[in-house]
């Protein structure tokens, strides 16, 4: 299939953990962003299919990114991957249009399950 993927997390370790968990057949091209602003720049200039988004980040946090995606009508599937697991935060990001809220650190099986559910695998 081959989707274009963007991983946005301020932690290098978290990005590596996620990249390692991504199923090989998912992506032809995977890019990274280290904060929300960087992610938005990429989203505004390129066609990205899937964004894996952290929430607690410097410069612009994940909620800010979701708000901008909504405001600017950017067509993208967002999977939030966060350690901030409060129920209120989960409903907030889903209300802002995220496809799924996944708890950090995310397991390969969980990732596969949700990517399949949304037709990316």
């Amino acid at each position, binding site marked *: 299939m081959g989707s274009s993927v963007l991983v946005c997390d301020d*932690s290098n*370790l978290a990005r*590596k953990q996620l990249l390692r968990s991504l199923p090989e057949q998912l992506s032809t091209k995977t890019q990274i962003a280290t904060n929300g602003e960087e992610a938005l720049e990429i989203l505004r200039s390129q066609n990205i299919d899937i964004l894996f988004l952290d929430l607690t980040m*410097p410069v612009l946090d994940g909620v800010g990114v979701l708000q901008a995606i909504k405001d600017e009508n950017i067509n993208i599937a967002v999977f939030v991957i966060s350690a901030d*697991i409060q*129920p209120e935060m989960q409903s907030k990001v889903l209300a802002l249009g995220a496809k799924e809220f996944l708890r950090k650190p995310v397991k390969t099986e969980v990732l596969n399950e949700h990517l399949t559910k949304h037709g990316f695998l």
Partner: protein
Amino acid sequence: MSALNLNEDQQDCLQELINVAMGQASDQLARYLDTFVHLKVPSIEQVDAKSLSNSLNDEQMAVAVVSQGFFGYEGIRGEALLIYQPRDSDRLADLLGYEPEELSVEEQIIDLSSILTTTFLNVFAGQIDNQMSYSAPRLLSSTKSLVSEHLHQLSFNWDLALKIKITYQVTDYSFNCDMILLIPESAIINIKTVLNRILDEF
């Protein structure tokens, strides 16, 4: 660079472990208080004895402090401080919903601190295949000198310490609580060993 300084990768790795732990601690706090807790990126810094005492003085414009020691395998140990503003202590009593005659505000603060500290550190320890024991939490008086005194009684060498600061901000109630983890000099090298082991896996 001193052998005790964390390099960029180690710092990043530690921060991610902290993120996951503070996420679960704030979830506990949110459920406990039935409210939402706003999280910020934690700060991690290496401090010497003088800066440590100065920075703690800054934190303590007449605040209540609860201190609790933690001890894990592989020489991972330190002291967790929970720091409250005095006006928040009064609010806290309302928030916790205890009957006044049931428990004093002091006991409630100790309770809450212990929940936060142990949740945070249990999750932290779980990620590094470790397990923590805790000393009994102690409410320190609000005067600055007592906190410094208390730290010096802990028989750690504080010439150099790793200071981790996490702010739990309860938005609905304008209530703030800072968690400060102090890792003494002797344990920093052990933390670095653990971080290197995780980094080697990636």
